[in-house]
C-alpha cells in the first residue's frame, strides 16, 4: 500500500504500550486502594451508595468469608444471573424496547448465550443486529458484561489476600469485592469511555432501524422460490434466477456505545453487531480503534501492579507485567510479519499489498494486528478483523495466545490468577531443581497448592483436546465446518479453544448455531470458567492459613529477570506440549499449502 506504513504502525505500537505502562501504575494503585478499603477520589460520592446497597441486601460490611463461603456466594450469584439472562433471551419477544420485533432465542441458543455472557466469554452464535432486542442488549448482555468482569476480579483479589494474610481463615467478602468493582472501577470508567467512543461516531440511541435511499440503486440475483420456498426450475431443469432491485439500505441503530465501552473494558468481547468491533458503528475511526485496544488491556495490565502493591512489593507485579508484555510483543511481531507478506496466491493474480481479506481499510495493518492480538491475549474476544481470513500463520497467533491459557494479560482477574498458577508451578519446579522447599512471597508451596495450580492450568487444555476430538468424529460436529482442508480443523480447534478459555472470538465461518455446538461450547465455557475459579479460591484458602516464612539466602527471587525467563519457559513448554500436534495439522499444514500454491 503506501510506501512505509510500517513506520507508523511501529509508532502506534510504541505509543500504545508506553501509555499502557503508565496507566497500569495509576489504575493499578487506584484498584489496590479500592480493594484494601482505603479512601479514593470517588469515595465521598460512592460510599453512601455502597452502604445503601449493603443495607438493602442485608450484608454486614465487616463480615468475612472463608474460601468455601466465598465460592458458594460466587456460584449462587452467577447461577442466578445465568437463569435470569436465559429467561430474558427466551422471552424477549414479549418485552418492550424491541423496535424490530425480534422473537425469543431457541432454548439451546439462549442457554449457550446465557452461559457465554456469565462466564465472561461472549461467544456469540447469534447475530446482534438481526436477533437481539435493545432490552436484551442493555438489561441482559451488558449487565453480565459488568458482573462477569467483576466476578473475575473478585476471584483474583481473594487469591491475593490468601498470599498476603498470615495464619488466617478468611479471604474477604464476595459481596463487597463485587460491589466495589462495579461501583469504583467499572461503572465510572465505562461511562467516560462510552462518551469518548460516541465522539468518534459510535452510535447511542434507542431508535428503530432507519431506511435510507441509496445514492446509486443496485440489484442482486437470487434463485426464484415458489410458495413453499423451493427453487423454481425452468424446462431444462435450471434454476430460475430473478433480479431483485436494491434501492434502500436499512441502518441498524441502538445503544451501542454504552455496550462497546464495557465490552472492551471488562474483556467481554460480545459485539452489539455481528461484525463486532469491525462494524463502523462500533469502531468508526483509527482513534476509536486505538482507544478500544487500550481499554481491553487496561484492567489486566493494571491488576499486575495492584497485585504488586497489595503484596507489598511493586516489583513482583512488574515482573509479571514484563513477562506478559514480552509474550504479547512477540505475538504482535509474528502476526504483523505473516499478514504483511500477504497471500502469495493473490500476488500471482496481480494483486499487491498485505492480506486485506476480512480487514477494514481505516485501521491499517497495525491497528488490525494490534487489535487481533490484544483481544486474544486478553480473554476479550472482540474482533476488528475476521480471524478466519487471516493468513494461516497469522491466524495461528491468536489461537496460540488463547491456548496458552489466557495468561498474556488475560481476562480481567482470570488472566492474573491463571498466571499466578503458572508462577506457583514455576516456583515448584525451580525449587525441586535447587533442592529447596519451594515458596512464593513467603508462603510454602505444598501439595494442595500444586494440585490447584495444575487444575487451573490444565483444565482448559483437556477440554479443548477432548471436545475437538468429539466434534471431529461426529456428523453433527463436522457438518458445521465451512472451509475445506486443514483450515476446517483450525475452525473447530479455534472454537473450543475460545470457549474453554473464555475468549469468545471465533473463526466465524463455523456454523456454530446448532444444538451440538451450542451445548458443547456451553459446557466447555462453564467448565473452563468455574473449575479453575474454584481451584484458585481453594488454593487461596490453603495459603491463607500458612504462616509467613521470611526470605533467606536460599529463597528464589521471583522479581528478577532469571525467574521471568524461567516463567516464560514453563508457560511455553506446557502450551507447546499440549497443542503442538493439533497446530501442526491445522495452521502449519495450511501455511505450507499456501506457500506451495494449490
Amino acid at each position, binding site marked *: 500500500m503506501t510506501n512505509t506504513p510500517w513506520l507508523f504502525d511501529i509508532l502506534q505500537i510504541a505509543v500504545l504500550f508506553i501509555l499502557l505502562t503508565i496507566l497500569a501504575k495509576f489504575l493499578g494503585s487506584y484498584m489496590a486502594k479500592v480493594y484494601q478499603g482505603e479512601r479514593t477520589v470517588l469515595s465521598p460520592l460512592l460510599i453512601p451508595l455502597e452502604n445503601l446497597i449493603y443495607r438493602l441486601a442485608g450484608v454486614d460490611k465487616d463480615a468475612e468469608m472463608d474460601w468455601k463461603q466465598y465460592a458458594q456466594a460466587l456460584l449462587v450469584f452467577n447461577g442466578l444471573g445465568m437463569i435470569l439472562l436465559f429467561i430474558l433471551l427466551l422471552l424477549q419477544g414479549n418485552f418492550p424496547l424491541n423496535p424490530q420485533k425480534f422473537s425469543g432465542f431457541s432454548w439451546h441458543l439462549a442457554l449457550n448465550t446465557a452461559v457465554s455472557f456469565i462466564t465472561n466469554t461472549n461467544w456469540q452464535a447469534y447475530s446482534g443486529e438481526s436477533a437481539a432486542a435493545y432490552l436484551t442488549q442493555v438489561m441482559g448482555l451488558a449487565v453480565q458484561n459488568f458482573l462477569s468482569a467483576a466476578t473475575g476480579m473478585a476471584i483474583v483479589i481473594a487469591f491475593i489476600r490468601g498470599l498476603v494474610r498470615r495464619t488466617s481463615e478468611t479471604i474477604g467478602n464476595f459481596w463487597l469485592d463485587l460491589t466495589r468493582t462495579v461501583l469504583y472501577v467499572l461503572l465510572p470508567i465505562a461511562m467516560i469511555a462510552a462518551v469518548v467512543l460516541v465522539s468518534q461516531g459510535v452510535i447511542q440511541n434507542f431508535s428503530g432501524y432507519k431506511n435510507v435511499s441509496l445514492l*446509486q440503486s443496485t440489484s442482486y440475483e437470487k434463485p426464484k422460490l415458489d410458495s413453499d420456498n423451493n427453487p423454481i426450475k425452468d424446462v431444462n431443469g435450471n434454476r430460475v434466477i430473478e433480479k431483485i432491485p436494491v434501492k434502500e439500505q436499512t441502518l441498524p441503530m441502538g445503544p451501542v456505545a454504552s455496550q462497546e465501552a464495557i465490552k472492551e473494558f471488562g474483556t467481554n468481547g460480545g459485539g452489539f453487531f455481528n461484525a463486532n468491533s469491525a462494524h463502523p458503528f462500533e469502531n468508526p475511526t483509527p482513534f476509536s480503534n486505538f482507544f478500544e485496544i487500550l481499554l481491553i488491556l487496561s484492567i489486566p495490565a493494571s491488576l499486575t501492579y495492584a497485585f504488586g502493591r497489595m503484596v507489598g512489593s511493586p516489583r513482583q507485579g512488574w515482573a509479571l507485567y514484563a513477562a506478559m508484555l514480552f509474550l504479547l510483543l512477540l505475538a504482535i511481531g509474528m502476526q504483523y510479519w505473516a499478514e504483511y507478506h500477504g497471500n502469495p496466491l493473490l500476488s500471482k493474480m496481480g494483486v499487491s499489498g498485505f492480506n486485506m481479506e476480512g480487514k477494514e481499510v481505516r485501521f491499517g495493518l497495525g491497528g488490525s494486528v494490534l487489535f487481533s492480538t490484544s483481544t486474544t491475549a486478553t480473554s476479550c474476544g472482540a474482533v476488528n478483523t475476521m480471524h478466519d481470513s487471516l493468513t494461516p500463520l497469522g491466524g495461528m497467533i491468536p489461537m496460540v495466545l488463547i491456548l496458552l491459557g489466557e495468561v498474556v494479560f488475560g481476562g480481567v482477574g482470570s488472566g492474573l490468577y491463571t498466571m499466578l498458577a503458572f508462577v506457583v508451578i514455576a516456583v515448584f519446579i525451580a525449587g525441586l531443581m535447587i533442592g529447596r522447599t519451594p515458596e512464593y512471597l513467603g508462603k510454602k508451596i505444598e501439595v494442595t497448592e500444586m494440585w490447584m495450580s495444575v487444575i487451573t492450568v490444565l483444565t482448559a487444555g483437556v477440554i479443548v483436546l477432548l471436545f475437538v476430538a468429539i466434534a471431529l468424529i461426529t456428523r453433527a460436529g463436522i457438518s458445521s465446518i465451512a472451509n475445506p482442508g486443514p483450515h476446517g480443523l483450525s475452525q473447530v480447534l479455534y472454537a473450543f479453544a475460545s470457549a474453554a478459555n473464555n475468549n469468545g472470538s471465533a473463526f466465524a465461518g463455523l456454523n456454530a448455531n446448532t444444538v451440538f455446538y451450542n451445548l458443547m461450547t456451553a459446557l466447555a465455557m462453564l467448565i473452563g470458567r468455574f473449575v479453575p475459579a474454584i481451584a484458585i479460591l481453594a488454593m487461596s484458602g490453603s495459603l491463607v492459613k500458612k504462616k509467613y516464612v521470611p526470605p533467606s539466602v536460599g529463597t528464589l527471587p521471583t522479581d528478577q529477570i532469571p525467574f521471568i525467563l524461567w516463567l516464560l519457559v514453563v508457560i511455553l513448554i506446557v502450551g507447546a506440549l499440549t497443542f503442538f500436534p493439533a497446530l501442526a495439522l491445522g495452521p502449519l499444514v495450511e501455511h505450507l499449502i499456501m506457500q506451495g500454491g494449490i
Partner: protein
Amino acid sequence: MKEIKRAVLFLITLSLLTGILYPVVVTVLARIIFPHQAAGSLIHKSDGTCIGSALIGQSFSGLGYFWSRPSATADFPYNPKASGGSNWGATNPDLLNRIKTNVAMLRSAGMDGSIPADLVTSSASGLDPHISLESAIIQIPRIAKERQLPQEKIYQLVQNYTENRQIGFLGNKRVNVLKLNLALDNL
C-alpha cells in the same frame, strides 16, 4: 437459603445500576454533546432526504462512480442488516475464485498494473465505507472518461476527500467512497 436471597438482591440492584442507570446516562450525555454521531452520522442531500451514513459503505457499480470494496454481507453487498466478512481462509478455493472474478472485472474496466489488495478483498464488516487512496487513484481514468471530465479535476477531488492518518500516525490514508461519489455528482 439466606445466601440465595442475598444474591437475588445484589442481582437486582446491580442490574438497575448497570442495565438502566448506565445506558440512560450515556444516552443523555451522547445526545447533548454529540447528537450527530449518536444518531449515526447521517448524510442528507440538499433537499433534506437522507442518503446514508458517513460510516456505512454503499455498493456502486456505475462506470462513473468510484467503486467500493467487495462485500460479503448476506443477500446483497453492503447490507447493514447482515454485517460480516466472508470468513474464507487464505487457501479456500471459493475465496480465490471470487478474487479472480473481481480482478477480471477490474481489468475489463480498463485497469492495468497491480491492483491494490483492498479493492478485491471483502472487508471484515462488509460495510467498509473506505477504499485506500491507491484504490481511488487507480479508478480515476475510468471515471474521467465516463463523465468526460479532465483527470486532474477528479484527482483534485480525491485529494480533497482523502482522510489522513488520525493524530498523524493512526490508521491509513483513505477515501470515503460515498462522500466522494456525492461530491462527484455535485461537480
